[in-house]
């Protein structure tokens, strides 16, 4: 997971961030809390709050696991 720390003006001039540089956490902020939520004849929409919580928990767990692995390696 990468963390971006760009300077504002530079970023505004560049126009857009390549999608591979977008931090997953920032992306999920938007994809799980934003966007059009539609109801109707859906198979599934994860407007369902439990799924959001599950994925956040997954993220945190994975970050922890990742840290542990790094510690073991170094």
């Amino acid at each position, binding site marked *: 997971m990468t963390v971006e720390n760009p300077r504002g003006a530079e*970023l505004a001039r560049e126009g857009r961030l390549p999608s591979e540089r977008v931090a997953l956490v920032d992306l*999920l902020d*938007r994809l799980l809390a934003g966007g059009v939520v539609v109801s109707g004849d859906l198979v599934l929409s994860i407007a369902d709050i439990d799924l959001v919580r599950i994925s956040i928990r997954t993220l945190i767990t994975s970050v922890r696991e990742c840290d542990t692995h790094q510690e073991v390696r170094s």
Partner: protein
Amino acid sequence: MTVNDTGTYLYAVSHDTGSPCPEDLTGVAGTNVRTVAYAGLVAYVSTVPLERFGAEPLRQSMEDLDWLGETARAHHHVVEEVAASRPTAPVRLVTVYRGDDQIRDLLSQRHDDFTEALARVTGRQEWGVKAYVDLTTATPADQEVAGTGGPGAAYLRRRQMSLRGREEAWRQAAAQAEEIHDALSSVACASRRHRAQDPELSGRKELMILNGAYLVERDRREEFAHMVDKLRGRGVDVELTGPWAPYSFTELADGQAEIHDDG
């Protein structure tokens, strides 16, 4: 595979300008993105297998970070491609319909809401701003406490000061977040605060005091970026991300919007 084994995954909705779907656009699970046009609107969709995108498989997949990351990036990629050339209403991650007919029903039934949402974001971009403070250096509590009394009394005084200091630091941080948000909102058409990220997710040890989204006119982006640069300092680090497709500003009319629209 019969018709019932697949669903229609919806990425975004835009005005139907008659322009074709971007060629070779790949969506979630490597599927081809196509368009469904109806009533002056166009939906960007792909056909997905329900053995992977049905309710039950999804419940399990959401616990798999690799799957979640891959799917989120694929969804984002499609939204970005579409939003690059036209006003776009991105749809929440993993919204799957039974088929194209249901997509057409959606475009017809919610036509006015989509039109309104698209009008709101036309000519505007979303920017993300996160502000951090380092509370460990912000507290004045470590200062040597002078006073009378033995070591016990001095300890208690120090402890009290430390607690008060921490409380004060939190209060200050909240006030600073408010200030930053107000300043940025004054340049934006609309603003919204997302929940602050856990330090384990932000990857920074400092406390995130603000996780804001701002809808900014395209021709005011330099001004907005300049404002972000100006707000940095005084023990606060401010991070800018974007421009984003307007994920945080396309709730339809009946959605539980927390948007404070200034314009």
